[in-house]
């Protein structure tokens, strides 16, 4: 063999303990009384149950569908009835229950429809990958990553090596070894499917030199094809994906990178076997080979177990004496974890069940202080500094731990294995990794929360702004309405408003007018103060005061002020006159002359003016008579004209008033005839009452008695008539 093997750094050589479970053939495990099938047996989102309690299912039928890209379906491991879908203890170190589909087998183990693909080469590659995905195949070495995703390489990626990982370096585990010995042809068939899928330059099988039988079986199976079996020296953990890739190709997968980045795809032996079963036989992944070993187990060996078989059922079949076992370990002794409950089911990634006695694997020793011996750094296969990572993880210095590439730790346990102080280093690293992950998710959540909060703030502000705008618009509309109402009210004032001193019209005019009044009083007071000051100045001059200049100054100031206010007043007056549309020819003296739009008021005003003018003229005439003036005749004539004018205006006013009254009555009558009638009736009745009273107060023999009585009777009749009319009207 000319192929070069690169040696990984570090590594350990723990006791193999594989021989115990290699003595027997693969045994088919019994179908248990109840299968507990977790919806999460792979990395990614849990599958979604697609059956209901009470459904009868056949072997291989999908009972839970994949939920997203990184997810896989779950199939019924045997035929039977779904009796529950509930939370059950599952294979997780957190000891948190997971959703499981509980199946009660009918012991017939009847397969449902199987669709083998005889000639997969004639299909599209994606269809074959879909078939692998639909068969629910996850990486069976322990991680459980969906195999279809690994095989679905990005277009343009050139795969140089396809590697089948048959190293199985962890102590005790012989599942792959036994599978190779018994079914090498089937594994190679699965590998050939993968070969066709990814089209690599070369296909390698990596296998440790502690499995001579398996090597022989592979050699035989690969005699007629281009698959090369590469034997690597036994060393833990050469079965790690990155470690094996380095050993076989010398290529290092970068931190955080994928093997396909360096043109390599690595798959597990069990996965190749499962792919063969899925494509050539149409069988989804419903069972796997699991090593059951440990000194507490009587019949150590490899079992072909239906997925979902509770661990205790399997152990019972293997004759395990659980009272002798110190613990129960799922997975290998290096990377596995203790399970808390023996009812936990076997799943796609369960390659080993270990029930060791206390002598075999004693209770861990007490943790001692780190003595900085550096042994851990020497055995680390990832080339890390476990002692540094330990300090950082322990003191929660996560940034430093990240800086020292904690993420690249494969948790192989080599460092813990060699630690003379029995420090559970891997546990510290798992803790540190968990904290970093938690911290990251918290940061993401905080950013998300910040975004949401800021968005909410912005939204509230926007709402507030909109509300404010609406409020403003409403207030404006209301103000406009109010103004319109006021204007309307002023345009049609009630008739008794004629005495109102304000100039009717718009508010502006009223404002200007009142402003003018104010200014007038200001002018008056300013003038008064100026005059007073002048008086004081005169007195001071007379008395010869020494503060004469101050007085003079004050007087000047006051004078200026008085003049200024006068000017302002004049301005206001003119503006009031010009802005008042209803009174362009307002009477000259008071700026606030009462002028009205109402014809009645105007008439009244005119009549009063005319009356005054006549009276003035009369006075003048009388004076002139007394003084026997020359223009007496003219004056008399003027007086007569004015009197006529005044009389005319008076008559006009009277006429207008009568008309108004009539109109009002007519309006009232049209508005409510019954009201008018009621009024009439009431008036008539009052008159009748009055007449009766007058009648009673007089003696019978009084002269006017008869007349009064007649009047009373007449009034009474009128009242009766009115009442009758009212009744008729009401009925109508």
């Amino acid at each position, binding site marked *: 063999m000319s192929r070069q093997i690169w040696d990984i750094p570090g590594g350990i050589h723990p006791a193999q303990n594989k021989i115990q479970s290699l003595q027997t053939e693969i045994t088919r495990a019994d179908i248990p009384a109840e299968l507990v099938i977790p919806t999460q047996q792979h990395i990614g989102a849990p599958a979604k149950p697609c059956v209901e309690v009470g459904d009868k299912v056949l072997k291989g039928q999908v009972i839970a569908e994949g939920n997203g890209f990184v997810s896989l379906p779950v199939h019924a491991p045997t035929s039977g009835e779904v009796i529950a879908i509930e939370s059950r203890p599952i294979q997780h170190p957190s000891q948190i229950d997971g959703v499981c589909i509980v199946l009660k087998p009918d012991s017939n183990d009847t397969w449902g429809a199987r669709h083998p693909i005889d000639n997969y080469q004639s299909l599209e590659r994606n269809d074959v990958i879909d078939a692998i995905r639909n068969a629910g195949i996850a990486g069976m070495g322990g991680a459980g990553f969906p195999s279809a995703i690994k095989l679905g390489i990005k277009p343009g990626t050139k795969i140089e090596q396809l590697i089948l990982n048959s190293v199985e370096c962890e102590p005790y585990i012989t599942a792959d070894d036994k599978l190779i010995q018994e079914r090498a042809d089937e594994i190679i068939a699965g590998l050939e499917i993968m070969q066709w899928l990814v089209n690599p330059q070369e296909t390698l099988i990596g296998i440790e030199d502690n499995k001579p039988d398996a090597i022989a079986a592979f050699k035989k199976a690969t005699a007629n094809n281009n698959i090369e079996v590469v034997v690597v020296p036994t060393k833990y953990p050469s079965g790690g994906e990155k470690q094996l890739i380095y050993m076989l190709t010398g290529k290092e997968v970068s931190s955080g990178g994928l093997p396909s980045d360096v043109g390599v795809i690595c798959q597990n032996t069990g996965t190749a076997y499962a792919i063969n079963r899925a494509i050539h036989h149409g069988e989804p992944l419903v069972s796997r080979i699991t090593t059951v070993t440990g000194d507490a187990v009587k019949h150590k060996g490899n079992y072909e177990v239906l997925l979902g078989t509770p661990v205790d059922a399997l152990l019972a079949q293997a004759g395990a004496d659980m009272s002798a076992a110190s613990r129960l370990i799922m997975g290998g002794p290096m990377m596995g974890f203790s399970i808390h409950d023996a009812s936990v089911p076997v799943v796609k990634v369960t390659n080993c069940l270990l029930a060791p006695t206390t002598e075999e694997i004693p209770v*861990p020793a007490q943790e001692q202080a780190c003595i900085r011996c550096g042994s851990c750094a020497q055995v680390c296969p990832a080339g890390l500094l476990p002692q540094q990572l330990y300090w950082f993880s322990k003191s929660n210095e996560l940034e430093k731990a990240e800086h020292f590439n904690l993420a690249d730790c494969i948790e192989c346990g080599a460092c813990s294995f060699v630690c003379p102080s029995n420090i559970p280093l891997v546990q510290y690293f798992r803790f540190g990794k968990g904290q970093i992950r938690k911290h990251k998710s918290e940061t993401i*959540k905080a950013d998300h*929360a*910040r975004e949401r909060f800021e968005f909410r703030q912005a939204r509230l502000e926007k709402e507030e702004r909109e509300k404010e705008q609406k409020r403003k618009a409403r207030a404006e509309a209301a103000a406009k309405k109010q103004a319109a109402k006021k204007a309307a009210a002023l345009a049609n004032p009630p008739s008794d408003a004629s005495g109102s001193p304000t100039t009717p019209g718009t508010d502006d005019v009223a404002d200007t007018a009142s402003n003018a009044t104010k200014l007038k009083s200001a002018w008056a007071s300013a003038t008064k103060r100026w005059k007073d000051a002048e008086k004081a100045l005169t007195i001071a001059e007379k008395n010869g005061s020494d503060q004469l200049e101050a007085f003079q100054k004050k007087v000047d100031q006051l004078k200026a002020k008085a003049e200024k206010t006068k000017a302002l007043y004049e301005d206001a007056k003119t503006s009031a006159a010009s802005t008042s549309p209803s009174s362009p020819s307002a009477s000259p003296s008071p700026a606030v002359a009462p002028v009205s739009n109402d014809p009645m008021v105007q008439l009244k005003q005119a009549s009063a003016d005319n009356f005054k003018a006549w009276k003035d003229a009369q006075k003048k005439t009388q004076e002139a008579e007394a003084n026997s003036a020359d223009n007496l005749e003219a004056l008399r004539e003027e007086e007569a004209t004015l009197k006529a004018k005044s009389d005319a205006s008076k008559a006009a006013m009277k006429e207008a008033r009568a008309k108004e009254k009539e109109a009002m009555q007519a309006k009232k009558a049209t508005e409510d005839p019954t009201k008018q009638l009621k009024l009439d009736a009431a008036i008539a009745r009052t008159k009748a009452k009055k007449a009766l009273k007058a009648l009673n107060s007089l003696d019978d023999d009084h002269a006017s008695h008869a007349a009064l009585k007649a009047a009373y009777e007449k009034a009474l009749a009128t009242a009766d008539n009115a009442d009758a009319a009212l009744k008729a009207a009401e009925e109508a």
Partner: protein
Amino acid sequence: MTDDLSAVFSLVSMAVLFGSALGYAAVKFATDDDPIADQVDALLPQTQCGQCGHPGCRPYAEAVANDEDEINKCIPGGEDTIHAMADLLGKDFIPLDAEESDVVDVPMVAYIREDECIGCTKCIQACPMDAILGAAKQMHTVIVDECTGCDLCVEPCPVDCIDIIPEKVTHTTWAWPQPDGVGITPGQLIPVRNIA
């Protein structure tokens, strides 16, 4: 003498040159936001709970950045946040300004006992994260993924049907616990002795 003059001249011209360059840069590359407040804000847990006495995390960050408030007011952030802020601002660590009972280590979420909810929408208005779903006279419920467990919805509830409970740990959020340390037998570890 000419040397002196040239030295003075060169220094002055350099001062003018760099001064104008700096002045230009100060105007051209001026930041609107306070970069220190941004950094402090990034350290805060964004629960928007207001327990620090500020209306949200950002205002507290600004107060801390402007030296108007102490760095030990963030109760949900706990001591980690105080350490981080102390490191960032070059201040000394001071213990958290809170009652012992106020401090919770685990993430909390609000939970509405839905059969008791009367649908008053008061909690919806109080929630700074818009994490409560519901309508008037309809039952309300908390969107757990958005809830920061800030407590602000508990007070307004007229029927006291809101509890603040620890967030449920799932397989994805679970993390390995810290080993107990020196002198104690580790719990979950599986050591293998070379007994062959």
